[in-house]
């Protein structure tokens, strides 16, 4: 995509984008207040709104989360975009437009996040043109972008094109005292050779979430050994944040909402004072905790997945049932505030809805404090 056409897309602001800008302006204003004046203002504004018979800023009042954000001095923030499932633009412009919207959202964050993690499944069928298109769009972000690989990026050419564009999918880095690790958690045992599948048949098999022929995701022995050595040098008091495409726990096996060797990864993280796993693949608001490890899902920009019929972690407060008549509902991007102790407040910036914050306090208290806003309509 040329820069020129990119600008054309940006020039047109949808009603949602305008609403979003207005909302952000209000939120930024509120962040600069201390908690006491915020509550005063919030109460006054609410009273005034009730008096006037209408809220002045619809959809913007989330006193608890804002007060927390305002009260948090240290730490830093990074943004996330995930699961865009791009086809070539000529075939399907919808998923392209949706990724552009997420890039716009992140680009407009103020203050600017330190970096962006892309959560995997940039392409739908791992085709070079899909990946190149994705790389081009993400290249519009004027902040560092950390890439993670998903199964849709991998199984056409076993990651060849992805590695050419983005490098090694397994790596670590340190940022402001936090140790970050990115894993390729979508390794599958060979199910294709015996069946004589072509690369595209293999890709399409893995691309089907409910396709039972494929194997289950795992990080695998090679990366586990790499991780063990990587973490050896890290002091237990250093906060660790792990990025993985699939959840590093067992949620629902038939859809690979699951990583087979998750327990072995968890055991490597248990010695740290704080450990956080941020994952994609599930396309939904998802929260879990195992001991010292907090787990958070990421939203997709392509389509929302239903919650699985069983295995949903207890701490998860579901996002609202998406309205099929609103093509952007249940989608979005978001950001992550890393607190000084290494635990994170996870912001799900749902398009066309209130943002939802799942705070470190909520997870740490096993759901007794700072409960995120509950959905008005849950899944069937």
């Amino acid at each position, binding site marked *: 995509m040329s820069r020129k056409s990119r600008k054309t897309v940006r020039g047109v602001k949808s009603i949602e984008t305008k609403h979003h800008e207005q909302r952000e302006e209000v939120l930024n204003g509120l962040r600069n207040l201390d908690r006491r004046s915020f509550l005063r203002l919030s109460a006054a504004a609410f009273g005034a709104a009730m008096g006037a018979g209408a809220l002045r800023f619809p959809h913007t009042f989330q006193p608890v989360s804002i007060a927390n954000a305002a009260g948090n001095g240290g730490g830093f923030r990074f943004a996330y975009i995930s699961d865009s499932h791009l086809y070539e633009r000529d075939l399907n*412009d919808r998923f392209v437009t949706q990724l552009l919207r997420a890039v716009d959202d992140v680009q407009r964050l103020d203050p600017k996040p330190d970096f962006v993690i892309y959560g995997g499944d940039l392409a739908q069928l791992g085709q070079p043109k899909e990946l190149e298109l994705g790389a081009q769009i993400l290249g519009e972000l004027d902040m560092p972008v950390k890439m993670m690989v998903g199964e849709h990026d991998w199984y056409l050419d076993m990651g060849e094109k992805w590695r050419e564009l983005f490098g090694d999918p397994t790596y670590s880095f340190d940022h402001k005292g936090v140790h970050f690790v990115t894993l390729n958690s979508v390794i599958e045992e060979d199910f294709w050779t015996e069946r004589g599948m072509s690369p595209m048949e293999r890709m399409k098999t893995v691309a089907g979430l*409910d*396709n*039972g022929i494929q194997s289950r995701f795992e990080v695998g022995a090679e990366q586990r050994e790499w991780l063990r050595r990587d973490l050896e040098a890290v002091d237990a008091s250093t906060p660790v944040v792990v990025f993985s495409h699939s959840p590093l726990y067992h949620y629902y096996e*038939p*859809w690979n909402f699951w990583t087979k060797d998750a327990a072995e990864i968890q055991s490597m993280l248990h010695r740290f004072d704080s450990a956080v796993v941020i994952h994609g693949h599930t396309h939904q608001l998802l929260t879990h905790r195992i001991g010292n490890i907090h787990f958070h899902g990421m939203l997709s920009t392509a*389509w*929302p997945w239903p919650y699985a019929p069983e295995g949903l972690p207890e701490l998860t407060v579901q996002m609202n049932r998406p309205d099929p008549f609103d*093509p952007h509902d249940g989608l979005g991007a978001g950001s992550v505030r890393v607190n000084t102790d290494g635990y994170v407040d996870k912001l799900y910036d749902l398009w066309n809805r209130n943002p939802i914050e799942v705070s470190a306090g909520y997870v740490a208290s096993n759901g007794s404090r700072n409960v995120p806003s509950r959905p008005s309509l849950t899944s069937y």
Partner: protein
Amino acid sequence: MEEAMREGPMREGEARRRHSRERDGASPEAAAGAGRSRTAPSTRALTRVAFTVTGLGLALTLGCSEPTSDSVASGGGDDIEVELCDGETSTRVPARAEYTREGGLAIASDLMAQWKRRNPDAEWVEAEREKHRIEPPADNTDLIGKTQGHTYSRITERHVKEWERELMQLVAEGSQIFHSPDALGSEIAVSCDMCHPDAANTHPETYPKFQTQIGRVALLRDMINWCIEHPVRGELLAADSAEMRALEAYITAQRKGETMQYGKH
């Protein structure tokens, strides 16, 4: 007679064949509702026997000898040619050999193996079920031995299997369409399973209901068509089309055990 034997499976197989050129014709198993045989005049003084695989018993009573590859290869004028109901597959056995059960089974296996080589996609229902989980239909084995008026003087195991086989064909066909952007005619390579893995969140048990967004009471098929028109960007299906029937069957099958709650939002 062959037409009559195929009528059932072909009726339900209509949509699938339309989408899958390489698969065609009913399989011998599908046509095996009634085991039948016929004797046809031979052009070379051979006795031609057509039979279906589950009609093996009939083949045995007609008499077949041990069909080794040698005997087939060296088949002289007194061989029996055993023909499958497809009219294309056949095997030869010596006419004067002893008739045994093993011999009959060997003939059946040979014919079936030949037929499978010619129809590599014959077990598409099993293949589809391996790929995509399909809830099995209700178990009716407790009805075996019971009667039901004029339709069944006595319900047999074969009846029960036939019900399930025919039903699974329709449901598996629905699963294929559900998972295929091409079968759905999507212009943007989108299929139903991309939002509804295992048909999750389709809640067929809640229809009919008033669907505010389209301003009228919707049946499940109306919502299927809405999805085909909008997120899938395909061509609308006729309400009674083979594809719509198959999709409804698959979606409903996946919610087996759910309480019917028509009108639930």
